[in-house]
């Protein structure tokens, strides 16, 4: 459901019309629009936004760890429409045990490395990703450095 204060934003309105069940929340803060999307619908919403709403660029994909809160992880997508000169943030919340979400690489090929980075540093799995390997850390690394329960200094014994 679309919060009432977002009715004036065309992108929010469009997603609401496209699939109101996928839209679980959102906010407009400091001039930036954030839409919360149900994780299961992320690919269809992204495809709609790219082809119908002209968000041709995927600027970045990243994660936020809300440990110890649940749902623990947020996957954050920053979209950019050159034609409308607009930016949009999509957010999916995932639970802490076995976080998994569909990959958006079929929509934007740019997601390939961005999602690999999130997989590498947060341990979030992306289904149907063509090449889900570690990208920053060595292949045999243990643990996910950007998780909040991973220490900043020191080596675990």
């Amino acid at each position, binding site marked *: 459901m679309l919060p009432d204060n977002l009715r004036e934003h065309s992108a929010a309105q469009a997603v609401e019309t496209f699939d109101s069940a996928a839209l679980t929340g959102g906010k407009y803060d400091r001039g930036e629009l954030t839409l919360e999307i149900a994780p299961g619908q992320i690919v269809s919403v992204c495809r709609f936004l790219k082809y119908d709403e002209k968000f041709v660029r995927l*600027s970045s994909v990243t994660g936020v760890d809300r440990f110890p809160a649940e749902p623990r992880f947020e996957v954050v997508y920053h979209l950019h429409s050159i034609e409308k000169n607009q930016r949009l943030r999509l957010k999916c919340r995932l639970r802490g045990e076995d976080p998994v979400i569909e990959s958006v690489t079929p929509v934007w090929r740019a997601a390939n*490395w961005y999602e690999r980075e999130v997989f590498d540093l947060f341990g979030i799995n992306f289904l149907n990703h063509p090449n889900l390997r570690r*990208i920053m850390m060595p292949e045999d690394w243990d643990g996910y450095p950007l998780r909040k329960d991973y220490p900043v200094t020191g080596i675990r014994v």
Partner: protein
Amino acid sequence: MSEVPGPLVATVEEPQPETGFRRMVLNMGPQHPSTHGVLRLKIELDGEVIMRCDPDIGYLHTGIEKECEAKTYQQAVTLTDRVDYLAPLSNNLCYCLAVEKLLGLEIPPQAQWMRVMLTEFTRLNSHLVWLATHAIDIGAMSVFLYCFREREEILKIFEMFSGQRMMTSYFRIGGLALEPPRGWYQRVKKFIDVFPTRVDEYENLLTNNPIWIGRTKGVGFIALEDMLDLGITGPMLRAAGLPLDARKTQPYSSYDKFDFEVPTRTENDVYARYQLRVEEMRQSARIIRQAMDGMPGGPWKADDPHVVLPDREKMKTQMEALIYHFKIVTEGFRVPEGEVFQVIESPRGELGYYIVSDGTTHPYRVHMRTPSFGNLQATPKLVEGSLIADVIASIGSMDFVLGDTDR
């Protein structure tokens, strides 16, 4: 993007008996000088033609994003320098703008203009290093020396402002780190008066040079649709005819008050990217001249005692100032809850800082959307099907920095 997943392993196979075809997988890097850092390309060859390319990054991963979470907001400024060590001030600026957006802080005009002037110097610095090393990769040795002559002058200007040549951290949340030094105007003027003729010198050496043209024209083509889809930004995109520049589309730090053009080319090859960056240097010089002549007076840091350190003199005479100084230095300042994604145009393309605040004195999450990371992703698309000798020219024209890629 390669269709076949999985890493390539360096091999030289025996030729096949019927066709004589021999598959060869070579490592280029991570210590290859033309990779400007530690990029490793695994290349599968058929003769001299590249069949597949598999870039391997991460050699320079230093965990800056994680480290930021352990610092106060002001301390983290020094880490942003190290992200892209050829454009430290662009990273400072983007980070500071993002935090200032979270704080809702008003920055005085002099600080804004000074920021514009110095980030344009950063652009010059970065483009000069790019031109120097790109030319030396392709074989034009002398350009290197000319470019570094001017770069040295720029580094001296940075030193004059901040006391540091490279990792200046001169922009702080709320304004500048120090008052602009006495005599900066003459110093900048001396440089900017001669700089356009120096750009002519580089052009004399390269623009009509038949070897340079032979090595760069028609090399490194990549379709505009592929670029947008693969996340390429910056000069690469503008050399393909799309005038996308955050300084124009989403002006920050009063860029809207400056008169400059966003150059574009349509040839979309290595030569066009060279011409474009040369033109960008001229435009940057133009912005610097406007900034220096129209520099507003007044304060150079924001008027918010909770965030900005008090003047030294006030600390000695006012109890309040001393308390604020103590609080800011020992504890840091609190930033209201929220999240922002601030985008600026770095010399390499779209630089974005995504900062999440939970209301404490330390950033909860700092993510850098770096242009090199997005650009480098397109390497396979750029080089597959071309000759191995063109790889150097092609990847050179992307102007990536591995620190920026791996963070």
